[in-house]
């Protein structure tokens, strides 16, 4: 029996809206899942129609990671919540050195959300997953009353397999290690902010949202002994460096002049009184590796389209206090502290 025959009228993907019946578990929900989700995400696991996906995994250690995506606005230059939800979780999986295998996606929809927008988001999610070579193998949809949500929240959870011999973890940074980044920082956060009507600025900056597992695969092929990988998302580069320093019980010394920042990002930060080091990224990674492998790693990164602007930005040092210090353009030093309070609202 085809799914279509079960419903008397097709979903109105042009003018329809999510209503409470789409989350009640009955036929309206089944129709939403069949005509919108399954159609766009089309894979063997989803079409089985079970509440869980079954699959075999290659031998090895697994990783699992989850992220709720609550970005506002839902659509932004360079992506939308759909592609972001795929990239965000793939990256967290890949930062262990793992090859991402599968994703699960849970949607919380707000009553009244236009089905056309939902279809656009799901199409974008599907495309991002296809491009990344992972499947959304299982999912869930809930509907909350108007005023109890914000259009769409998407939680994705990913699993992946870590190749033999790889041991990447935030606690492995050692004094003497070198710190690299794969390109310009702050693009995602500034792209999101540029869509805030009340900030009222315009720029050509696009989100850097991207799936980094391909780049990472190249990197670990060239330098299996990468110590740490992490994507500097919320809280930006500064916060990620602090996390790693704290986890590893080391300090860091970063050179401001070596951090790639686009002029428009700098300019937007000047205008808003922000520091690019605290602005979110969605297609960036911080890598830490032994000093003698740094040039090889840098060359490998630069050879990949997502690492063309890669740079060595600093070194790991001994410091029981776990401080991240930055050499300013002037040769002075300042602390690159954790983000205090909130810098930017709702960026991932």
């Amino acid at each position, binding site marked *: 029996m085809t799914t279509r025959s079960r419903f008397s009228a097709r979903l109105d993907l042009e003018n329809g809206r999510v209503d409470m019946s789409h989350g009640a578990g009955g036929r309206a929900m089944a129709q939403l899942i069949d005509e919108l989700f399954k159609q766009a995400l089309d894979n063997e696991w989803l079409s089985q129609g079970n509440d869980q996906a079954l699959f075999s995994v290659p031998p090895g250690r697994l990783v699992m990671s989850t992220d709720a995506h609550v970005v506002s606005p839902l659509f932004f230059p360079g992506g939308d919540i759909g592609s972001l939800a795929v990239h965000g979780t793939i990256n967290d999986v890949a930062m262990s050195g793992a090859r991402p295998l599968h994703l699960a996606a849970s949607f919380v929809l707000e009553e009244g959300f236009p089905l056309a927008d939902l279809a656009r988001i799901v199409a974008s999610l599907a495309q991002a997953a296809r491009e990344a070579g992972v499947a959304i193998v299982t999912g869930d949809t809930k509907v909350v009353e108007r005023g109890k949500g914000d259009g769409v929240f998407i939680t994705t959870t990913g699993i992946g397999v870590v190749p033999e011999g790889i041991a990447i973890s935030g606690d492995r940074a050692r004094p003497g290690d070198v710190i690299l980044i794969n390109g310009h920082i702050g693009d995602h956060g500034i792209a999101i902010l540029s869509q805030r009507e009340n900030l009222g600025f315009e720029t050509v900056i696009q989100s850097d949202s991207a799936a980094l597992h391909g780049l990472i695969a190249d990197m670990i092929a060239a330098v299996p002994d990468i110590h740490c990988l992490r994507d500097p998302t919320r809280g930006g580069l500064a916060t990620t460096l602090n996390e790693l320093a704290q986890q590893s019980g080391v300090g860091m010394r970063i050179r401001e002049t070596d951090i790639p920042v686009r002029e428009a990002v700098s300019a937007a930060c000047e*205008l808003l009184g922000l520091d690019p080091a605290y602005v979110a990224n969605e297609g960036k990674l911080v890598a830490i590796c032994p000093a003698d492998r740094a040039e090889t790693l840098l060359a490998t990164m630069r050879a990949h389209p997502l690492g063309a602007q890669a740079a060595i930005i600093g070194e790991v040092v001994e410091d029981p206090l776990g401080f991240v210090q930055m050499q300013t353009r002037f040769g002075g030093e300042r602390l690159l502290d954790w983000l205090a309070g909130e810098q930017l609202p709702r960026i991932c």
Partner: protein
Amino acid sequence: MCLAIPARVTHVTRIDPAIDTAVVDLGGVSREVSIALVPEVEVGDYVLVHVGYALNRISEEEAQETLKLMAEMTRLLDEEMGNADAVAKPA
């Protein structure tokens, strides 16, 4: 709190001096600002932008003058040291 940034005026919209606005550009980022405080600005001017308002025009000549003065203040030294890249030892 007194954060103010120089930006170039790329567009001026004049309707009523009290509510006139300009678009300014800073390194590829543009935003609309009120010019209620500097109604005389023209396209091409640089203005100091503070909380969405142009506060004042920036004088190109004075800026050059300041930079020139800086250069002079340090010229003697420059020559003495014979090497522009010499780094002053931080305190």
